[in-house]
């Protein structure tokens, strides 16, 4: 579902990298001075701001929320299925636990899963994708076959089958999601590495005697940061959604408080049939909002790093800041940076 979205985003990025090698996308975020680059553009991008606002909000909720919630989310504090009230802002669930507390505490597990899986998947993707893209030859043949096989084997059934085999638990889910989720990033990074390694700056690093590892990590990787970051966000999104889905199916550890489990229990207690919508809305909407937040950031990254996708408004904003000339065309306001001279 949301993975198709990531797919298109990543596609666009790969393409952008191929078509505009000298574009601003190759300028990574490194120093404050450069904030006027990608980050600056992102800050000015309304979509990115909305996305970042949502994500930061939930990260804060996950980080400090559990210390502020009024009740222990595992404690039975009232009658079952009480509608929202002053005592229980989000009402109580089918056992009489406080839904607000569950939602807030649930953010922690859901986001933690997302970020951990995102990090693992990104690291695996970087290692395998870059190795394949840089080494070429047999190593690449082997690795890219593996990547493509993992990509083509349907993930969801594999996810469910794997989750069914493993003991239910937080780390099992992390493992399953990491195993099934790394290939997209690896594929995108592989093709990106392949195009970057043809760049003269790589050749020039070779001629001054840089080692392979250092070339990969210090010369090539920094130039793919926007893709890495977008891939990371995509993976976080995938993990949060997939974890919730698996838990909803009862394949997680139901004692763990997370959004997926909240929905699992709501479903188990027939929340819909008794009209207890308040047990369904907070967790479901939270998953949706976080996913929306990350998607919007990625959408904006895509827009910012791929000049073709920039909207007129943003282009105008850039123009206000610095002298540049714009070729007027229907589809693509191309910004030519006047740096020659």
């Amino acid at each position, binding site marked *: 579902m949301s993975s198709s979205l990531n797919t298109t985003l990543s596609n666009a990025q790969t393409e952008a990298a191929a078509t505009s*090698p*000298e574009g601003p996308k*190759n*300028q*990574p975020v*490194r120093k404050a001075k*450069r904030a006027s680059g990608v980050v600056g553009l992102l800050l000015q991008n309304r979509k990115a701001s909305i996305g970042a606002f949502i994500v930061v909000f939930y990260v804060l909720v996950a980080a400090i929320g559990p210390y502020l919630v009024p009740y222990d989310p595992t404690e039975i504090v009232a009658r079952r299925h009480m509608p929202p009230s002053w005592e229980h802002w989000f009402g109580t669930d089918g056992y009489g636990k406080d839904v607000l507390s569950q939602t807030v505490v649930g953010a922690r597990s859901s986001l933690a899963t997302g970020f951990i899986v995102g990090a693992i998947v990104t690291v695996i993707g970087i290692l395998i994708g870059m190795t394949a893209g840089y080494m070429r030859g047999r190593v690449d043949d082997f690795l890219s076959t593996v990547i493509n096989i993992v990509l083509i084997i349907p993930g969801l059934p594999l996810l469910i089958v794997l989750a069914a085999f493993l003991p239910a638990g937080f780390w099992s889910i992390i493992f399953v999601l990491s195993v099934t989720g790394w290939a997209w990033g690896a594929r995108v990074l592989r093709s990106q590495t392949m195009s970057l390694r043809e*760049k*003269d*700056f790589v*050749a*020039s*690093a*070779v*001629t*001054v*005697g*840089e080692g392979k590892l250092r070339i990969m990590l*210090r*010369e090539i990787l*920094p*130039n793919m940061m926007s893709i890495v970051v977008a891939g990371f966000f995509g993976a976080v999104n995938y993990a949060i959604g997939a974890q919730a889905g698996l838990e909803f199916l009862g394949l997680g550890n139901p004692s763990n408080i997370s959004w997926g489990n909240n929905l699992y229990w709501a479903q188990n207690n027939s929340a819909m049939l008794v009209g207890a919508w308040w047990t369904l809305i907070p967790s479901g909407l939270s998953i949706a909002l976080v996913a929306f937040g990350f998607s919007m950031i990625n959408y904006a990254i895509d827009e910012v790093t791929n000049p073709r996708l920039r909207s007129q408004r943003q282009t105008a904003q850039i123009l206000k800041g610095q002298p540049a000339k714009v070729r007027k065309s229907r589809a693509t306001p191309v910004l030519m*940076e006047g*740096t*020659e*001279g």
Partner: protein
Amino acid sequence: MSEQRDLVLDVQHLTKHFPMGGMRDARKVHAVEDVTFSIPRTEIVTLVGESGSGKSTTARLISRLIEPTSGEVIYNGTDVLKSQPRGASLDYRGDVQMVFQDPFGSLNPAHTIGYHIERPLLIHKKVSGRKELRERVLDLLNTVGLGPAEETAEKFPYELSGGQRQRVGFARALSVEPKVILADEPVSMLDVSIRVGVLNLMKRLADDSGLSFLYITHDIASARYISDHTNVMYAGRMVEGAPSDELVHEPAHPYTRLLLSAVPNPHAGLRTQETVARGEIPSLIDPPPGCPFAARCPHVMPVCREVMPNAVTIAPNHWVRCHLYGDGGVSPLPTAANSVG
């Protein structure tokens, strides 16, 4: 090989065939075929030819960015291909440096100018301590005319103009105190107005620092301006070699004449080209026997399509590979002829 000349680099029968890529595709691209020339110490030798003629590939073969199919690269009397079969040694990398054509692509957009120059210094242990490193970097930047060096070192490539970037390329190449610099069309992407500055820089370095240059260009006029000896390449092969002045004034090969006719000559006024190129540059994929220029040559004879002409010495240090000269098969080898006198 003439003993009286001190050759830094001697290239013998260098050949590079690229496979076509398909698993079952046995065809090969003959990018460089039997290229032989040498560079005397402190001299500038030019390889001139159209794009696709194999001159950049030749430079990359010498710098060992790619490995040749066959041939010898003799550096200071040793065939480095044999003595370092698993890639160039750090010493060779330090002695043979390369400056790239594209000033935008050859600097890593992720790193500062300072970083670009620091790395070779550190890799080749040319400095001890942070302070000396800093001094050397600034020194080098000043050497190539990139003052104020303090400021430049902190800048990112995108903050420099093309000419400035190319100077960074030279500064980096110089940093390791090389013996030879392979300059691959260092000025072709620069504005005409700043080309001379870079060419003068090269000339000055050759004169003052005892450096040798392989200057690669498609611009025969700049070859004459800067270099002592010029070799002409066409379709992967060398077709003529002569002292630069002589080559311009008395071109022997029809292709060389074609190249010269394309150069605007202020003294000749407006005149129609007498030698009109017909046909296309031949495919380098499994090329047919005979002279590669046969298809375009105004003086083509039946033998040209059947037999590859041998190199014939027509004047001291001036040889040509054409059926119009000599009696074919008895000409001396170009190596002997090519030693610039």
